[in-house]
């Protein structure tokens, strides 16, 4: 069983839901990334989504765009990000790490080299924002041979036939993007989410994470009531932006802990 499936199985037996924070690797500095990851785990994160910075983050709002720009200015490449995961694995062998990013850095490295390097670094899942299922069969198969899960997005406009298609290709969990727009754009519409989840569950036999637009403990708690995992990104990246390299890990930890507490209350 993969680390991601194990994590969800354990949480299920405890009657808890997964908290999945997203941070951009290399933001605010390369040196801060592994301490931030460790701090996220200590604060109660179950899975970490680690953003691979890209020069043209088309699906992201201003907050995550700026974090990508900071990380690139620090010279953070996909190879560096894989290095952070290796380092993280030296002290943490149980928390799943999912790389989230755009296609081109992976294309530039090549599928074979990437899957090879990701597996040996200890990556558990890969979410490529601009690879819809139609364009990602090759990478998905390559990742599968290494036991790495392919995470896919579903949106409010995904039709039933697409949800079925994602259900066939995805493993680990699927990520329901709860609003129309880019990351960090607005607040989540709870009734929309609860209306959509039954249809997704009918076709996808995997845990469902919900993200985009979750900004506080109260909303996280409400989402945890209906989904299997809560993904929080822009709100954390904002906190990173407002911190210094010295206090960033502690600040992020405090924020995630408050969300965890609200979710479990």
């Amino acid at each position: 069983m993969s680390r991601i499936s194990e994590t969800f199985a354990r949480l299920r037996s405890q009657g808890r839901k997964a908290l999945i924070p997203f941070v951009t690797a290399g933001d605010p500095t390369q040196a801060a990334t592994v301490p931030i990851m460790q701090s996220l785990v200590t604060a109660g994160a179950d899975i970490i989504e680690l953003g691979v910075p890209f020069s043209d983050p088309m699906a992201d709002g201003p907050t995550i765009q700026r974090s990508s720009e900071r990380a690139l200015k620090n010279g953070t490449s996909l190879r560096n990000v894989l290095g952070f995961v290796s380092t993280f694995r030296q002290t943490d062998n149980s928390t799943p790490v999912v790389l989230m990013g755009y296609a081109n850095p992976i294309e530039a490295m090549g599928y074979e080299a990437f899957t090879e390097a990701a597996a040996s670094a200890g990556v558990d899942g890969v979410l490529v924002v601009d690879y819809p299922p139609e364009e990602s069969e090759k990478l998905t198969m390559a990742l599968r041979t290494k036991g790495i899960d392919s995470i896919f997005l579903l949106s409010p406009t995904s039709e039933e036939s697409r949800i079925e298609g994602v259900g066939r290709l995805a493993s680990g969990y699927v990520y329901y993007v709860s609003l129309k727009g880019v990351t960090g754009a607005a607040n989540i519409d709870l009734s929309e989410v609860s209306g959509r989840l039954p249809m997704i569950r009918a076709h996808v036999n995997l845990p469902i994470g919900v993200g985009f637009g979750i900004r506080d403990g109260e909303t996280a708690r409400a989402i945890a009531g209906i989904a299997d995992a809560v993904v929080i990104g822009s709100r954390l990246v904002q906190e990173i932006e407002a911190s210094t390299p010295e206090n960033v890990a502690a600040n992020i930890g405090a924020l995630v802990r408050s969300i965890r507490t609200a979710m479990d209350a």
Partner: protein
Amino acid sequence: MQMYDLPDRNGHFGPYGGVFVAETLIHALDELRTQYEKLRSDPAFIEEFEYELKHYVGRPSPVYHAKRLSQKCGGAQIWLKREDLNHTGAHKINNTMGQALVARHMGKKRIIAETGAGQHGVASATVAARYGMECVVYMGSEDVIRQSPNVYRMKLLGASVVPVESGSKTLKDALNEAMRDWVTNVEGTFYIIGTVAGPHPYPMMVRDFNSVVGRELLTQMPDVLGRQPDAILACVGGGSNAMGAFYPYIPHKEVRLIGVEAGGFGIATGKHAATLCAGKPGVLHGNRTYLMQDDNGQIIETHSISAGLDYPGVGPEHAWLKDTGRAEYVSVTDDEALEAFHAMCRLEGIIPALESSHAVAHAMKIARDMPKDKVLLVNLSGRGDKDMNTVAKHSGIEL
């Protein structure tokens, strides 16, 4: 003769093209593809489009024998396809007119567009005004400064121009921002992409609307010359004017197709936008194609004296035509393009766009070594009124 019927139904030209977007945009693209596939073979739609091209755009555009320019080169005869004479001054309106009609058929009341030089922005603002639609144009904040006359034109036409501050603050960032707007306002908004790039069906749709250029040539050239030209040359930014001229000629193997990219300060300096000449395949803006990128797959900043060629990608169909050898791609530097610009002004009384000047420059270069009875047809994609500030500044003159 082998049939050429690309793209396939998923928008692929061999390994290029496709639909590389986030799930949030898939539905909108499916809807557009379904609608456009119906419209492109609907005689009533085609008739409506052709009527607008004739009475509003001013088509067909003439072909013209640039005799004095040819004489100066002393070799092959240079002919021009006068897209500069279209309403709004470039080929861009062929496409915006077509897409505006598609938007109307889909009941969309709000138009968004990205622009670099501002030509596509002006052409979008124009058709939006023509049909009473709201229009928002995204433009890199660097380009807003470089191309201020076009910003004012767009505003006169009732569009709002949004300066984009992210990334390199140029065309590629304007495209990112337009995509973000689209995904947020997808229900009532139609995104008019300005070149043969983006996710399927855009590369096919923009090609179809611009291929009126090549179709006219197919009959015009035998009329004026008694035969087809030996080569067709066009500048390539994203590649829409080139694709429009090339597409109907793909089966005519005896006609060479030559795309001319922006060599900037020279390929060796790294400061250029010659994507097909010096880039590598990758994924950006919804399709797989050649890109200007670093070893880590990050998109790098490009340079060209002409804002309209200053783009790190290129249409996927050009990538395919390059790999298959059906078309050739070369580059021309800023200085060579400027030289051709001035030659056109002095010898032909035509002020060409700096983009188009690249194609003219390459024609002048190869004409010299060709016999006098050979014919090079240059797609003169636009006029140079918009470039007065750039050219003057380059000559050390403050306007």
